[in-house]
């Protein structure tokens, strides 16, 4: 038997929220603290280090620049897919959500290429605290992209059947998935300048090892 959980679809009049929306915001709050700890690590390691490299000397800025645009684009198509649903245009929804997923795939492909070149150049996390935190931050972010891709892919494909039966609930799902997806984008918006663009300081010793 199934239990009817209140405010699963319609907002609670007192808070103005349906459950999943509050849930995902709380989850994002915890994500803020997760990445916050890693940013804290970055700042402390950098402050304590006698020298810190300039990101662009080690990392590939043009590639990351393209990736940033890809992720931003996917954020826009995500919000557009939600708007299309609200306008009852299911075909458009499919289109935009499809693009979102393709963008996510593109982002992952580009990231994999970047990792690949790093590894083939012998740039491993153990080489410096800069590379260490670079791999942890971008790696964790990549896991979030993969998670988002799985959810969005489901909502684009098999999950979209729900639109026929419970359109409101489905639109909610898209909104919630969107909140998460925008957050992933938002994290990258900080990662890009912090890792790739910020100028370093001091003379970095050695060529890596």
């Amino acid at each position, binding site marked *: *038997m*199934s*239990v*009817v*959980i*209140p*405010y699963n679809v319609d907002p*609670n009049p007192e*808070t103005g*929220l349906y*459950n*999943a929306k*509050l*849930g995902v915001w*709380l*989850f994002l*709050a*915890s*994500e803020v*603290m*997760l*990445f*916050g*700890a*890693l940013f*804290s*690590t970055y700042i*402390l*390691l950098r402050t*304590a*280090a006698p020298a810190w490299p300039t990101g662009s000397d080690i990392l590939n800025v043009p590639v990351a620049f393209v990736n940033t645009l890809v992720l931003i684009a996917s954020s826009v198509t995500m919000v557009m897919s939600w708007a299309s649903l609200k306008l009852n245009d299911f075909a458009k929804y499919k289109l935009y959500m499809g693009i979102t997923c393709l963008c996510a795939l593109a982002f992952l492909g580009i990231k994999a290429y970047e990792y690949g070149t790093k590894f083939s150049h012998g740039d*491993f*996390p*153990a*080489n*410096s*605290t800069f590379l*260490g*935190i670079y*791999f*942890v931050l971008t790696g*964790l972010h990549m896991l979030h992209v993969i998670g988002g891709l799985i959810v969005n892919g489901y909502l684009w494909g098999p999950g979209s059947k729900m639109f026929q039966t419970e359109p409101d609930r489905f639109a909610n799902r898209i909104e919630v998935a969107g909140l998460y997806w925008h957050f992933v984008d938002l994290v990258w918006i900080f990662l890009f300048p912090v890792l790739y663009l910020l100028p370093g300081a001091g003379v970095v010793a050695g060529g890596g090892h």
Partner: protein
Amino acid sequence: MEPATTDSHADAHEEHHEESFWRKYVFSQDHKMIGIQYGLTALVFMLLGFCLMLLMRWQLAYPGKPIPAIGGLFGADNAPGGIMLPEFYNQLGAMHGTIMVFMAVVPLLVGAFGNYVVPLQIGAPDMAFPKLNMASYWCFLPGGLLMASSFFLPGGAARSGWTSYPPLSVLEDGQTVWLFGMILLITSSLLGAVNFLVTIIQMRAPGLTWMRLPFFVWAQLVTSFLLLLAFPPLEAAGVLQLFDRLVDTSFFMPDGLVISGEMEDFRSGGGSPLLWQHLFWFLAHPEVYVLVLPAMGMVGEIIANNTRKPIWGYKSLVYSVVFLGFMSFIVWAHHMFMTGMGTVISAFFQTTTMIISIPSVIILTCLLLSLWGGSIRFNTPMLFALAFLPMFAIGGLTGLPLGLTASDIPLHDTYYVIGHFHYVVAPGTIFAIFAGIYYWYPKVTGRKMSELLGKLHFWPSLLFINGIFFPMLIQGMAGLSRRLYDGGLTYEFAKDVMVWNKMMTWSAFGLAVVQIFFIVNFFMSLKTGEKVGGNPWRATTLEWTDAPSPPIGHGNFPKIPTVFRPAYEYSAPGSDEDFTAQSQPQEA
């Protein structure tokens, strides 16, 4: 099981098909079943943590003497000839702490009591996200089993203390499994925290305004908030430590490390050992309030019920709990006073530490004043709840000298600290858990536990537990260090307080023996316990007044109740009964 009327028979039959054994008992989405799963699992882990402690206590009282009877079971790697090795002792210490905190007490307080009681108390049919709830248990169980199994894996269990300070933890065996286990346990707690917050914020029954919430629900709300925001940094730190261990990064490893004469030149260096401590204690201080807030909530419920009067100062209690939750995020560095802390930061953390004791004093004061004017029933749950008060007071008060840097110098890392926090978690929280089990047992099973066995459990437990922990304060004051394999035998300066060790250890064994009353009572009462009606304690809150005991299956309430009154309307003027249900309409 319930006799079904012919009318609903077909229905029931269908349900039966739908809810297979697996769906009903294993992969259940019903918060009550999940609560029971959490409870039983965590009790088993608690027993394990308890047994590890007994082994340690044996070694502390009789260093180098073979463990009697079972000494041969641990193998030559751990205890050749039954004599415990230092590496085994260190594993026992680290795992006792980890198991008790993350696998026993938190899952009991939040996973079991929170899950079972909160939706019932707020008049909700279930948690907001039943599937997530199930997922959270199914992260907890493998996490816990992984941790527990680490004793049997090559390399053994973690041995760097539950605090896992690097560089040691990066170098020692067993830590990788610990880290993976922690990541699972943290994930489980985070899922649970989101679920509790949404449930409490969104799904309170009509009329159940914030100031009518049972105090226990408030405590769970704040607790969930602490888990939500404090755990992620430890998760991040755990990932970083895994990197340090598995791919030789240097997040926590500084320049110029020389381990047993060998330079660690495969690492880049440049990391900070203190960074781990910040990230760890950013969680672990809020965590200790996670260990005590729900316990306070339960004690509040039980005291109101058994004094037959409203809790005194409900509002101050609520504000204090919220304030305590907030403050607990900004006191963590009081665990790091001896790491070379400057004057400004230490002044900040000493001040916040003193501030955070104020809401605790207010909470204790309110609970104590609630007794005044009551008509006190001394049943087993009440005895445990009453004992919580002075025991928590000892634990809390001994926190004060630790909270000042100067007085922390002689006390830091001594048995005084061990005594301090065990007073809050063992005769404090564990007693509150016992109180909760005795109190809500009839809710879950429809039967009461035996009062006689309960009292046989309570009185000696109270005696023995003080016999273990009070001497710790004495030993610590004399300077005896914690985490010593030989209990301090190497040193001269604390010789004269070592005499306590035997008495403490025998108290611990005594404590173990009297737990048998509890275990027997717990299982026997399932069959032989006195059958009771829906509301055996004559309580006011919804879980008793509006749901049968045991509650109906998934969905909880025959009809979602509406609330008209504050939580603790006991002995209200003008009422014939000495309690008035929250759901009883006010007369016009």
